[in-house]
């Protein structure tokens, strides 16, 4: 799946996007995040406080427990500060 990172998540991980093949049994957006957090030190740092991370599936805000189903793009970012 195409995975995007924004703001300090992007900076901590060191890339803006990548393709990730999530392991079988990865059902929800939150489980996908937990998998990413296991990919290395920079990921662990980015996701050290999972409760504050916002997730979008196919460009829509979703709760962490949302099933991935056939989503094609997932994005992780801190709370928004636009406006």
């Amino acid at each position: 799946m195409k995975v995007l990172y924004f703001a300090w998540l992007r900076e901590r991980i060191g890339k803006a996007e990548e393709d990730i093949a999530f392991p079988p049994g990865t059902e929800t957006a939150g489980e996908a995040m937990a998998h990413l957090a296991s990919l290395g030190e920079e990921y662990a740092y980015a996701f050290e406080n999972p409760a504050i991370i916002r997730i979008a599936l196919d460009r829509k805000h979703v709760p962490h427990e949302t099933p991935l189903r056939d989503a094609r793009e997932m994005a992780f970012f801190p709370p928004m500060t636009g406006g």
Partner: protein
Amino acid sequence: MPDPLIRVQAEPFDAAAESRRITAGRTDIGAVVTFTGLCRSEEGSLAALELEHYPGMAEDELARVAREALARWPLQGVTIIHRHGRIVPGEEIVLVVTASAHRRAAFESADFLMDYLKTRAPFWKKEHPASGAEGGWVAAKADDDAAAGRW
């Protein structure tokens, strides 16, 4: 129901032109409210803001909040323009324009749009200090969430 005009762009915008675009040639609009958000220097401590956004989703979310305003208030026009990229103090960041037959709908919907886009639109501000030190990401404010919770 009118189509909202949504733009996400690096370039500055012209608030007056956007207001005229809504009212031109019409005689059924009684009230136009414009909100312009500007970059502050924080007493000289800020050199610039860097506004990162999620292309595609940013436009979608602004359109979503605009459509929500159109569903809640009798509006004859809604425009939202949000800039991204480097913005220096004194420059404009965001524009909301609402037009209605009556002033209450125009005021409330503009206020609503600003509260909502602050908490829903995928934009992130990084501050570049005038000192030249490494910039930091602006933390989301709890009172922005509280403001959005009013609606």
